[in-house]
């Protein structure tokens, strides 16, 4: 299948499972922020679940189909139009050559995932097709889509007995989290401010992390002694020196020196992809299973 970009949208990138094997040299894990949506969209077109997808951000691209095939959308609810007619985007969309596919900005959620039938002919770097921006550097520039670019897949990526993936049921209002390694550096008052209280996402928030409208107090010993840098992961809730809780996402750096007070549950990490600046959510504390 071939799709030509007429417009790129706000930021449309190729994303897959990322580069978890390179965190020891400081390369962020990266990949689709909402990996459940990536897998679901791929299942709808019959692709292997880790096939790359397009990650759409708030404003989707306009695409012309140059050679027929199926696409499917998951994640935030971007209404899809084919030749300007609304189509049911809860299932795979069959496109014929010449069809134009466009999207309306979602009313809820932030990032959409467009699976395209077939094996993707795209450049990879360190085993992944995912775009990665560090500061002003695009480390895989071809994974950031621009007007006039052409995305091409070849048949063969489709697997004969595709996995059936149930539609994810995101909950962006309640994010579940466990105690992080430095949970005990939160003062009791800070715990009360952070857990099961409405929090807002504030700017700047991006694929590196979500900032929150918090001013939390940490124990005096935290201020006396700088923490030795240690590993962080997507979903880690760090508290900066000025008391702001930041939830790290897939493009965050690999080690950090701020107290890691909470770690979001694996299933909640995908939901974080759908929060935009101004959205409210709360954190629910889970206990580790005793063993």
């Amino acid at each position, binding site marked *: 299948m071939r799709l030509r970009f007429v417009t790129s949208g706000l930021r449309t990138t190729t994303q897959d499972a990322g580069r*978890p094997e390179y965190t*020891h040299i400081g*390369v962020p894990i990266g990949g689709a922020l909402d990996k459940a949506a990536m897998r679901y969209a791929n299942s709808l077109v019959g692709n292997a679940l880790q096939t790359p997808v397009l990650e759409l951000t708030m404003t989707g691209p306009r695409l012309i189909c140059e050679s027929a095939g199926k696409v499917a959308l998951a994640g935030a609810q971007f209404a899809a139009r084919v030749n300007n007619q609304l189509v049911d985007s809860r299932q795979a969309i069959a496109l014929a050559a010449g069809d134009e596919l466009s999207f309306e900005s979602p009313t809820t959620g932030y990032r959409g995932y467009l699976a395209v039938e077939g094996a993707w002919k795209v450049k990879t770097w360190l085993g992944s097709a995912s775009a990665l921006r560090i500061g002003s550097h695009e480390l895989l520039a071809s994974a950031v889509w621009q007007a006039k670019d052409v995305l091409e897949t070849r048949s063969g990526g489709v697997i004969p007995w595709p996995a059936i993936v149930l539609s994810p049921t995101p909950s962006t209002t309640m994010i579940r989290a466990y105690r992080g390694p430095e949970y005990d550096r939160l003062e009791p008052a800070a715990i009360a401010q952070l857990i099961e209280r409405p929090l807002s996402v504030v700017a700047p928030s991006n694929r590196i992390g979500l900032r929150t409208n918090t001013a939390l107090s940490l124990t005096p010993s935290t201020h006396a002694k700088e923490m030795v*840098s240690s*590993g962080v992961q997507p979903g880690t809730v760090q508290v900066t020196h000025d008391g702001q809780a930041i939830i790290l996402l897939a493009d965050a750096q690999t080690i950090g020196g701020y107290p890691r007070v909470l770690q979001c549950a694996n299933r909640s990490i995908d939901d974080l992809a759908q929060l935009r600046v101004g959205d409210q959510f709360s954190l629910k504390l889970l206990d580790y299973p005793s063993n």
Partner: protein
Amino acid sequence: MTVIIRPYGDTAVLVEFTSDDGATPSAMALHRALRSEDPQGIVSTTPSYDSILVTFDNAKTSYSIVHATLVALLERAHPESTASERLWSIPACFDPSFALDCEPLQRELTMSWDSLVETFCRSEYRVSVIGFLPGFPYLKGLADTLRCRRMKTPRTCVPASSVAIAGDQAGIYPLDSPGGWRILGRVPIPLFNPERQMPALLAPNDRVSFLPIALAEFNELGRQWDHGDLDIKAWIS
């Protein structure tokens, strides 16, 4: 040495080492053991100074299995097994045009530029961790007389390949990036090259010393690098 293993969320384990001698070798030994044994379901391993973060896929393994695997590996992974270290002698140019903090450093450390550079190049450094940016080496071994404060307001852009110091550490910026470390000079080649199969030049536990070179030689080495004529293996002994 004491080791603490504990959960860090529902798909990760944090292993922390307490020892008297800066425990990176233990974290690296465990990292290497995990890489070579490749236990089922391990997704990533991130060694740092005195800890290692291990993430796993909970559809393929579980906390208790990973915990048991780590305990078994720790018993076998001796710090000596990290002996594959390389010794680098990396040319670096300390010309004032690269040394953005030439003046403030002389003032803060009350030292002439020549003796500052000489002191810096006399030490041998060890890469304790790669992080902050892809390929950024945190170097231990800075002389006490060169300890300095970070900038109050970080620069918005430190040029790639800048050699920098802050606190009791040294480092080399792999990419143009914001940064608050004090800039001493520059190395003639990129520390991080996405085109290479292993893009980071340095690895944890590598030993590094700096060989001061003049601006003309710096430019010549840069030219050779651009033409693919520079054999950096000659910098390793």
